[in-house]
């Protein structure tokens, strides 16, 4: 019965607590108590949905990855904006992307990255977690997009998770 009183994910609890303090406009007694309750309750409720913890994650590489993604979002936004405004018709495509990542958390980070960078949306993951279906707004060559995603995002993620 004591595992009901524990924090199954200490980092998640810490993030929730800090986020609540920021949201509630400064630390006070009330916000600390409510933040503590949320930091305990939310991980308990969502515990079953979390994939198992990866064996080893090189978290210090994450800031570089985020910077690269932000940079790509801005660069690619301009090309998508130009594509929307230009009279040329885009050439949409569904692309099956062969996944080399194995950890569910890594796959969901990759899928979110693909959706965030303009021009591509990840539509589905196959049931065996081996293929990712991507919809590209304008694709002249599928290989080019697959190569770009592999070199820019999947490789650094593989290094982080394995």
């Amino acid at each position, binding site marked *: 019965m004591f595992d009901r009183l524990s924090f199954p994910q200490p980092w998640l609890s810490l993030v929730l607590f800090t*986020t609540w303090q*920021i*949201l509630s406009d400064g630390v006070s007694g009330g916000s600390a108590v409510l933040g503590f309750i949320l930091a305990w309750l939310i991980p308990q409720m969502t515990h079953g949905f979390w994939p198992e913890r990866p064996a080893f994650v090189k978290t210090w590489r994450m800031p570089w990855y985020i910077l690269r993604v932000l940079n790509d*979002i*801005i660069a690619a*936004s301009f090309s*998508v*904006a130009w594509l*929307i*405004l230009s009279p040329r*018709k*885009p*050439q*949409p*495509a*569904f*692309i*099956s992307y062969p996944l080399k990542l194995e950890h569910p958390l890594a796959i969901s980070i990759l*899928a*979110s*990255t*693909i*959706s*965030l960078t*303009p*021009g591509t*949306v*990840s*539509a*589905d993951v*196959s*049931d065996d977690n081996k293929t990712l*279906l991507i*919809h590209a*707004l304008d*694709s002249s060559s*599928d290989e080019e997009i697959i190569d770009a995603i592999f070199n820019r995002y999947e490789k650094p993620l593989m290094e982080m998770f394995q």
Partner: protein
Amino acid sequence: MSPFAEYAISALLLFGGAFTLVGAIGLARLPDFYTRLHGPTKATTVGVGAIMLSSVIYFSAIGEGIGISEVLITVFLLMTAPVSANMLAKAAMHIGVETVKDTKGKPWEQ
């Protein structure tokens, strides 16, 4: 407020507004459901990002401390936008929404 901050805020607001407008135009102009998914999800990332940044500068310039809540809004937005785009795409595939004729490849059936 210093004139420099005012110029920066105006420029960022215009930039963000322009991107949001382009996203809306994309929603109207693009040919099918899947391509239309791209317009709004992208406009939010850069457009809202620029508007949030201008809000951060404004509240820092009038001296109410740096706006951490704006950063939080951006983070929440960046975390939820891909999920909603993914759910929309999945739902569309599930009910078999038609694609434009020249789309390469096909959605899966599984």
